């Protein structure tokens, strides 16, 4: 659906379907994302955008169709799930930092236990990432002592410490006070400029316009429209998209 050819595709969804009991959450969603591509997913609430992104690292299991991430198809096999999760970092709306661990321990936990890295080695790397998200001085505090914006930047650094190929963002700025949105978006923009493959569910249209290679609009569990930011904002094809853009851009 996007410009990427399937030769360099890193994420591929083919006719993915998902139900919550009788509720049809995803309807034949097909999507190809190339390496290094930045995709912004938007749409009204309940449109299935979060469900889709959570299917990519199998926090939710899809029921029909295929999802292939960096050459591994996600199945009920635990090994395939583990392999994909090692390569995919995720940032949540509510940060989901581990409150009983210090910031530095939050960053080093998974590399030590999942990747088997030495503590001293990963601590250096973790400090490097904390400098990149501009909060190295908070390394020994607990998450509860940080502001929302700082916590979300820690969450990004935590995901990066696993050296992922792909980063998923599930409404990363929706739980933040307005004055903290920018500090998180700045970090995400830097990440995008470094060539990370990113899939981002967000309503930050300014971010979408400046960073995204393509924008996907979802409604009622289906992809309604996708295209480059220019096309999407200047010349939306479907009535549903125009209506949505009208609602979120009118202020």
């Amino acid at each position: 659906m996007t410009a990427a050819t399937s030769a360099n595709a890193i994420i591929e969804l083919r006719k993915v379907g998902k139900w919550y009991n009788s509720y049809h959450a995803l309807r034949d969603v097909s999507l190809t994302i190339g390496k290094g591509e930045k995709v912004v997913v938007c749409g009204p609430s309940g449109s299935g955008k979060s469900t889709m992104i959570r299917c990519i690292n199998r926090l939710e299991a899809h029921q029909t169709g295929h999802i292939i991430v960096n050459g591994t198809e996600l199945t009920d096999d635990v090994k395939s799930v583990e392999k994909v999760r090692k390569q995919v970092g995720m940032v949540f709306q509510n940060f989901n930092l581990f409150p009983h661990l210090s910031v530095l321990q939050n960053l080093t936990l998974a590399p030590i236990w999942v990747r088997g890295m030495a503590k001293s080695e990963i601590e250096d790397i973790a400090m490097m990432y904390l400098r990149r998200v501009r909060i190295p001085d908070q390394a020994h505090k607990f998450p509860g002592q940080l502001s929302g914006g700082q916590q979300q930047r820690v969450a990004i650094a935590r995901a990066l410490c696993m050296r992922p190929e792909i980063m998923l963002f599930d409404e990363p700025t929706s739980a933040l006070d307005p004055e903290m949105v920018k500090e998180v978006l700045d970090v995400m923009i830097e990440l995008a400029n470094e060539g990370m493959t990113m899939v981002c569910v967000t309503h930050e249209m300014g971010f979408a316009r400046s960073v995204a290679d393509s924008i996907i609009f979802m409604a009622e569990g289906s992809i309604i429209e996708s295209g480059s930011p220019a096309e999407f904002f200047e010349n939306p094809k479907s009535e549903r998209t125009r209506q949505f853009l009208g609602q979120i851009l009118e202020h």
Partner: protein
Amino acid sequence: MSKDLSPPPSTVPPAGWAASYEEEPSQASTPPSPYGAQGGMTSLKPFGWAKDNLFNTKLNTVLTLACLAILWFAVPPVVSWVLLDATWLGTSEECRAGAGACWSIIVVKHRLIFFGTYPYDEQWRPFLACALFVAMLGVSGVRAFWRPGLAVAWALVLVGMGVLMWGGVLGLTHVPNDKWGGLPITLMLSVFSITLAFPLSILLALGRQSSLPAIRTICVGFIELMRGVPLVSVLFMASVMFPLFLPEGVTIDKLLRALAGLTLFTAAYLAEAVRGGLQAIPKGQYEAADALGLGYWQKTWLIILPQALRIVIPPIVNQFISCFKDTSLVTIVGLYDLLTAATVATTDPEWRPFFAEVYVFAGLLFWIFCFSMSRYSQWLERMANRYNRR
């Protein structure tokens, strides 16, 4: 002073109730209630304070006088029975002549209460074992000692205790464990059953949340069975019925059977407390751990349990205390715990009238251990939840 400014009780009943509630436990040492001194400065002088807080409304005046009356009638007799009229070192005849408590029975019978039927001349051995055990428990509570060496120390202490209690080596005479009794039984049963029940309860709580139906059913079935049956029946089953299922010639020690019964019973209750903690952990914590690629046991051990157990320290310690007291029920399977030994001490015809003193003393011993646990849990809670501080 401010009497005329205080509203009548009918307009603000909560204030009147709150004030009268706060004054009850202790008199002048209670800090002034924020509700009691409405409208006026609270005087630091006792008289002014009492006027502001104890006699500020009609209702409070009545309640204050009622409390004073109860104290007037209750305290002096208790004090004279416990202290003033008590006989401390006399004979049983002197006790019978006296009006107060007969603490002499404790002095005379303390060896029996503490060590039961353990051979009299060897009672320094259970004493030493208990002292070691309590000291070790104290040391284990101190954070600075939480390091691998502690496990080694425990292993040595347990071996040492075994040698002391059983004997048969190092020139100590052998004392079979059906001769043991009193404090060592109570301490060992409670500490060992708590120590064994705790990890078991975590497994049960995790199993109850398992996505595998077989494991879930087994755990739910076990917990509901144990919770649905009185401890007395569990102990009976462990003691009487369990040996029937064992092959001919295989016997398991009576003490061990009681320990197993107590452990399983406590584990079922603890499991429900732990489950409460597990359920309090937000879904996002599980998801974040999953997204980072942590496996089930890593997620449970590193992320979920450390948070869940901190939340449920109060109900867990509650269960520990309950278990400690429940050990007194092992008397029904013929074990001599502290309370049973105390009861035996009262059967001496010479001292029979003074059973109340013995039970007060036994109660005090139980209270000391339970209250220590309670205080320790408060410290533990503060320490464990320090990350919540801002």
